[in-house]
């Protein structure tokens, strides 16, 4: 298994590097892009998804758009936006925000949709305003699904940010793309390994957050039978 040994050697070497190409710098870059783009996309998509879920308007558009986005190739979007906006960080970051929107929108919408309508009606009959229904009833009850949407978006962005190294983004994808350019397989494999570890850790963190959101607001825990 010389490939494995070479990869381990590369990882050991890269770990001792400092500067732009060091593992710590690339991991921080990758995390930075992820936080930045998911945060921007959340500000756009989550309120929109909550509104669609609460009012039930434009439901079909939300569902259809999410389905259609699945067919859209990420690399095509990255290169197209790259050609229009030129070399630099803006193009890949814009593409990442666009790709993070559908899972966030779907999660926010589905979270509200899943809340039992009788619970909402009960809150309304008790005199809750629409805003109170949304913030005190629907969001807490749908939180696990909303967090699930954020989880999908984060994983989507981590994966796509790797691909985006091709159009000039930093982060862990640099090892894959730069290694490919000089046929340095151990560097590519080492970089891929790091991306996989990062994705698994983030997924585990969000799985934990989802479990927390479910535990605090499980609707069936105290069933009221009349």
């Amino acid at each position, binding site marked *: 298994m010389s490939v494995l040994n070479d990869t381990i050697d590369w990882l050991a070497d890269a770990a001792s590097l400092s500067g732009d190409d060091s593992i710590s710098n690339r991991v921080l870059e990758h995390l930075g892009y992820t936080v930045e783009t998911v945060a921007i996309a959340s500000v756009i998509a989550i309120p929109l998804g909550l509104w669609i879920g609460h009012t039930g308007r434009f439901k079909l558009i939300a569902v259809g758009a999410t*389905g259609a986005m699945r*067919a859209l190739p990420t*690399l095509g979007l990255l*290169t197209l936006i790259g050609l229009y906006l030129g070399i630099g960080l803006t193009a890949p970051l814009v593409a990442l925000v666009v790709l993070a929107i559908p899972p966030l929108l779907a999660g926010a919408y589905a979270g509200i949709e899943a809340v039992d309508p009788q619970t909402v009606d009960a809150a309304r009959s008790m005199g809750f305003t629409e805003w109170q229904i949304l913030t005190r009833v629907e969001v807490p009850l749908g939180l696990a699904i909303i967090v699930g949407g954020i989880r999908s978006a984060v994983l989507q962005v*981590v*994966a796509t940010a790797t691909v985006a190294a091709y159009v000039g983004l930093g982060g862990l994808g640099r090892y894959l793309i730069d290694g*490919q350019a000089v046929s340095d397989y151990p560097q590519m494999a080492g970089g891929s390994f790091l991306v*996989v570890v990062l994705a698994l850790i983030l*997924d585990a963190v969000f799985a934990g957050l989802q479990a927390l959101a479910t535990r605090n607001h499980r609707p069936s825990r105290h069933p009221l039978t009349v």
Partner: protein
Amino acid sequence: MTWVSDNLDLLRELFLRHAWISALSTLIGFAVAVPIGWYAHRHPRLRGISVALVGVLYTIPSLALFVLLPGILGTGILSTVNVIVALSTYAAAVMVRTAVDAFDSVSPPVLDAATASGFSSSQRTLRVELPLAGPVLLAGVRVVSVSTVSMLSVASLIGVANLGSLFTDGFRRDIVDEIVAGIAAIVLLAIVLDVLIVLAGRLLMPWSRVVVGANR
């Protein structure tokens, strides 16, 4: 759009290549996932483990898997085999979950009725359980085929030719038309495969008008 008319042969060649790689990967994924899903459906203990395991598989970013597989399989990095194995793995990962749901959706009294009418257990599985799970399985295949078509394009970054090669080439040579043509061809292929899957479903399951949630 002069780029398109000047490169029809290239487009046709890449379209066909893209079509067979994604169709084959979807089929392999389906063939692997259905027995696993069926087994997990019958063994509740394995169910949690298998669903968690396929969840982890699906978390692995595609480009990373495309790069790592040649090292694991010992194939060349430019080999199409890596890409097919990677895409089949993703396809299976998604479909195991759907397959468990599909077999759960079959009503137990129907299975009891089949047993009572003298079906052996293998006959019952193949001729009663599988067809009844069909509509949900079909919905799963539709979702997977679309994402497989789109995911394959990433493999062009490691030098395996497919419609995604139009993106890398168009980006390098600054040809917007080439990238737009690539996106259009991929969306078209996804639609064509989806229509074929729905038609296959109508042929194989004439009793059900196949409209079961395409958005599962």
